[in-house]
């Protein structure tokens, strides 16, 4: 069994936005939300929650919470990582926002971030987590289902 199926994975804000926009160039974002959530244990950093709140109305946020209940499990992390950990990532070249995400994932021990931002901290070689696109996640989960059947 792949560790994506057993470990917690974080979902970046852009996955929700592209899924909502139904962007033709990102069909896998929507597919991730509807076909694959039930196979994932989600970890949602506070920073992502705050970013979603900037984009969506309160009613729409309630819908997001409802949707995510389909996951195997969801952990909304309402704590912020220590400023020292954020500063460490900034010192390594991350912008402050990306540093907050990285620090949250590092502190929580999360090894996967699903994001459509291919360049997310690509300049940092030894990130403690792997950045995967929704397409990559769906392919991994799909190949697991085929092996199981």
């Amino acid at each position, binding site marked *: 069994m792949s560790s994506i199926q057993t470990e917690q994975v974080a979902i970046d804000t852009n996955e929700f936005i592209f899924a909502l926009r139904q962007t033709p160039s990102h069909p896998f974002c929507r597919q991730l939300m509807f076909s694959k959530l039930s196979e994932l244990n989600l970890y949602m950093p506070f920073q992502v929650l*705050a970013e979603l709140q*900037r984009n969506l109305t309160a009613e729409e946020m309630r*819908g997001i919470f409802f949707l995510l209940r389909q996951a195997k499990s969801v952990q909304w992390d309402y704590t912020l990582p220590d400023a020292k950990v954020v500063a460490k990532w900034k010192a390594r070249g991350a912008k402050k926002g990306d540093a907050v995400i990285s620090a949250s994932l590092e502190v929580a021990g999360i090894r996967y971030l699903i994001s459509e931002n291919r360049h997310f901290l690509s300049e940092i070689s030894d990130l403690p987590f792997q950045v995967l696109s929704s397409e990559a996640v769906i392919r991994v989960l799909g190949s697991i289902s085929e092996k199981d059947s």
Partner: protein
Amino acid sequence: MVEVSEMNPANSTVQITLELPQAVYERVMQRAGDRPVEMLLVDLIDQGLQADDAEQLWQQIAEGYNQRLAQAGKLHQTTDEVLAELAVIREQVADEFYPD
């Protein structure tokens, strides 16, 4: 075909007889493993209904969101433009969380 065999108000259950295509039946039996197949079917139906509700809700959210984007002239932004805008929001949020 579904046939209601018995309704039991005492424990809020309905007993039904269900006719499944052979292929679906085989997939269900394979998935059930050691679990009672009845329990698996209840879970699968429940999950299917929840997914359907969620998809309808998501569609409503998407319509409202895209309407707002259209009003703001942002509906046809490129991937790079969307990511750039999200990056700005990310920095704003981070600045509020960790003011220098």
